[in-house]
């Protein structure tokens, strides 16, 4: 065990990455979640990323847990401690370990290959053998092998087993036998390493107090909770990775909060549509009828919904679309992340159309912006796109606890009720009474005076059918005015200025946030000072333009091939486009600071060369 300490270059406390390589369908997800949660409970900030294949069983999967005492929010891209449970990927897993790092493997079978790197310490634990001896049933043995490595990792890093036990107890509740079995497996791993590797590793987990007031939650669950709090009553969907868990979450929250205990009546309705065209059609129907309605989907779904989106835009029907983006094009990489539907969503559908978008960066914003999305949709009577992605939506993120103000009331926009209709002389659906581009709306069944006809074909301000050029233009011109006026209603940008004066800046969006902040620190350390603005809504708030104007050069950091955020900035602000330098990452992995640091450094180097 001595060489262990020798190999390690330095002792790293609460600052390393634990990466578990496994095969999907073996139940490793809960073991990995347990590890991460335990670290979090010890007060240590964590970043967790689950990398899984687009199939159900038998292919490689990885889970990264970054302990980050400095509370960074991104992947680091390194792996100091690899738990290599998948023989298929041994080679690549070993190669990935950082110099001086460790690799834990199942030594039930000899694995000489895993000892080929001088600068990596391989730690063998006979997980399978021990579990086979301890447990009967085949499936149990597979599951318990995972728990056994949890114990081994705990033993090696100093992770508190009591915390693990607490979590296991919470997890299984009253199912005593499951608690016993899992703890048994954990102890098998723990005891083995305590016996065979008594000296602690230089990678240490130590208690901190940096997670108080925080929770660990994924963005889809958070967005679902936002839908509940927004008072959404109707959701239609068609299953698609990575959006499925959003509707799963909505369903389980509604089942908790919205079912009448006596009658069993449900104060919500979820319909699994026959496809995405139907799902968005249903949400539009519900929105037209006055319910807060939404549909979660991913890129292929947005493509399929395109025709209906244009209808809701032109007919001015409120509806919220959650686009949990995944790597495209086409079916692409369904289990990899990207921010690749930005331009699509901004201008979705044929003809002249412009939409409202919100861009959450983490689960907390998912919760908050979900609520805002419904307010925006009703206020502006139009589809609102909630642009999240697989990384935000499906990974557990450490975020501050959600807050709620009980005085919140939904912004229903200009919606006339029965009495108001009774009082007015005549109602015209598309009459711009207030001159702000937003007209009054009525609901079916409320009053015969409120009756109007919603259509995707040419209509005039009265709501009547028209093919007259001037009448047609009046309506579509108002639609642009209305859209532009949303610039100050969408969530405003978040600006972070560096301490030193900076002539250059970064603009980024969504889940890149953590990576950008970390990259800024790294660049600052190299003497490159940058300010940073994160856009959170489209059309862009005026502050965005002002921020660009303030700087000589702005790096636009985003996760797609075609610089889509930059495209939107170029199109929809007055910023000169050569000021906007694209920094792109589209490998499908959650962002890490590396591509930003390297991208910006490389760019600055070229300037140096040129100068």
């Amino acid at each position, binding site marked *: 065990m001595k060489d262990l300490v020798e190999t390690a270059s330095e002792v790293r406390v609460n600052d390393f990455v634990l990466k578990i390589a496994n095969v999907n369908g073996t139940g490793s997800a809960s073991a990995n979640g347990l590890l991460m949660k335990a670290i979090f409970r010890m007060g240590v900030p964590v970043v967790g990323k689950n990398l899984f294949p687009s199939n159900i069983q038998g292919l490689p999967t990885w889970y990264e847990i970054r302990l980050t005492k400095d509370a960074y929010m991104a992947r680091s891209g390194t792996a100091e401690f690899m738990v290599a449970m998948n023989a298929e990927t041994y080679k690549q897993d070993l190669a990935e370990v950082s110099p001086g790092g460790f690799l834990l493997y199942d030594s039930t079978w000899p694995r000489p290959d895993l000892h080929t790197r001088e600068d990596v310490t391989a730690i063998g634990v006979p997980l399978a053998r021990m579990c086979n001896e301890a447990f009967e049933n085949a499936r149990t043995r597979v599951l318990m092998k995972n728990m056994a490595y949890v114990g081994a990792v705990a033993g090696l890093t100093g992770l508190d087993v009591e915390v693990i036990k607490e979590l296991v107890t919470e997890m299984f509740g009253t199912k005593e036998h499951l608690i016993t079995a899992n703890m048994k497996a954990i102890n098998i791993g723990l005891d083995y390493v305590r016996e065979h590797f008594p000296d602690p590793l230089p990678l240490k987990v130590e208690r901190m107090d940096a997670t108080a007031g925080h929770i660990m939650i994924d963005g889809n669950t958070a967005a679902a909770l936002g839908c509940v709090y927004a008072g959404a009553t109707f959701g239609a969907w068609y299953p698609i990775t990575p959006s499925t868990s959003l509707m799963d979450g909505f369903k389980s929250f509604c089942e908790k909060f919205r079912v009448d205990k006596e009658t069993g009546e449900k104060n919500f309705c979820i319909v699994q549509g026959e496809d995405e065209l*139907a799902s968005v059609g249903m949400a539009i129907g519900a929105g037209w009828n006055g319910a807060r309605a939404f549909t979660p989907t991913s890129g292929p779904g947005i493509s399929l919904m395109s025709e209906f989106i244009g209808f809701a835009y032109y007919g001015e029907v409120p509806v919220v679309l959650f686009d949990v983006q995944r790597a495209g094009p086409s079916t692409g990489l369904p289990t990899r992340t990207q921010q690749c539907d930005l331009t699509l969503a901004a201008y979705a559908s044929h003809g002249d159309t412009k939409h409202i978008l919100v861009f959450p960066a983490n689960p907390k914003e998912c919760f908050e912006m979900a609520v805002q999305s419904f307010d925006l949709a009703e206020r502006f009577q139009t589809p609102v796109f909630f642009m999240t992605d697989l990384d935000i939506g499906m990974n557990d993120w450490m975020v501050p606890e959600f807050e709620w103000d009980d005085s919140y009331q939904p912004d229903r926009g200009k919606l006339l009720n029965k009495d108001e209709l009774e009082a007015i002389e005549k109602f015209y659906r598309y009459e711009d009474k207030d001159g702000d581009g937003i007209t009054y709306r009525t609901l079916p069944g409320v009053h015969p005076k409120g009756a109007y006809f919603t259509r995707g074909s040419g209509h005039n301000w009265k709501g009547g059918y028209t093919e007259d050029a001037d009448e047609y233009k009046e309506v579509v011109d108002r639609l642009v005015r209305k859209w532009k006026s949303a610039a100050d209603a969408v969530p405003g940008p978040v600006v972070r200025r560096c301490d030193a004066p900076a002539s250059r800046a970064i603009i980024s969006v969504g889940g890149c946030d953590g990576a950008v902040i970390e990259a800024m620190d790294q660049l600052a350390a190299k003497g490159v000072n940058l300010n940073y603005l994160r856009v959170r809504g489209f059309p862009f708030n005026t502050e965005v333009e002002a921020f660009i104007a303030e700087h000589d050069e702005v790096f636009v950091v985003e996760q797609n091939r075609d610089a889509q955020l930059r495209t939107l900035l170029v199109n929809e602000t007055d910023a000169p486009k050569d000021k906007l330098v694209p920094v792109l990452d589209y490998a499908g992995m959650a962002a890490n600071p590396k591509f930003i640091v390297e991208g910006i450094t490389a760019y600055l180097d070229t300037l140096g060369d040129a100068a």
Partner: protein
Amino acid sequence: MTSMPKPFIDKHLPKNKLGLTVRNYEGSMSTLCAGCGHDSVTAALVQAFWELSLAPESAAKVSGIGCSSKTTAYFMGQSHGINCVHGRMPSVATGANAVNGDLHYIGISGDGDSLSIGFGQFAHAIRRNLNMLYILENNGVYGLTKGQFSAAADIGSTTKKGVPNEQTPIDPCIQALTLGAGFVARAFSGDKSQLVPLVKAALMHKGFALIDVISPCVTFNDHAGSTKSYAHTYKYYHPLVHTDFVAHAEEITGEYADDGAMRVTLHDGGELRLRKTDTDYDPRDKAQAIETLMMNGGDGEIRTGLLYLNEDMPDMHAANKLPQKPLNQLPYEALNPGKAALASLQKRYR
């Protein structure tokens, strides 16, 4: 051509229970071709609504795109209407209905709209037993795009120029039957006496009610070679079951009474009296209904009337255990768990 006609005053017209005349149920002027079957269906709808004394604002009109789909603008101008995209009316109806089941949903579609681009939505609305009246104005062609064959065109039916259709038609009634619809009827725009009571019955049926109305397109499919022409339909028209809708009837369920009519009490009120023309036809027997319709190909007869009825299937609202009070009318307080619940919920994420 505004969608909100002024209140009509006409002293000489009879009034229904709400004190409204038939004018109160009319819409804007039709822009269809003179003689188009669809206009007769529009008239039947106006008549049925007036006769039922339903408040105009209690209806919600939904449609797709096509000459047929346009007609929702031509009746009941005092009801909301939504004329969405081609073939996707059923989904809009589903969402609208889910959040307010108190309205009467009237979907108008065409054979192109329902059987080609919209076939999936048509099928799945039936599967969900969406509580609505679904009228398919069937003319065998795409009227609005100038006369291409639709999927309902019969084999051998010809275009104006004489080119025959060679593809197997889709029979919406057979499909509805096999997909589980509880109310399946066929009618002809040329016979209002049959259509009006069917519309009333369908409106009162709690669940998906299909009326496939042969509704000739005078401009593109009313020539000699067409099997969806007025002449052809009149010739082969064969009413199987005659339906009368009687409001607020006494409780007499099932089985044939002495007057030879079968009486069925509907969940939403009223009674149906079914009088068979063919003595051996039983509108409760799905297999017989399918077989009878499949025979059409054989003798060419167009069998009409309420072909099948099963009023005991849970509709979408029941299946989803939706509340009495429409979702769109629940107060926000009933929907929002509040600050305290949020705090306690979050313990699970620590």
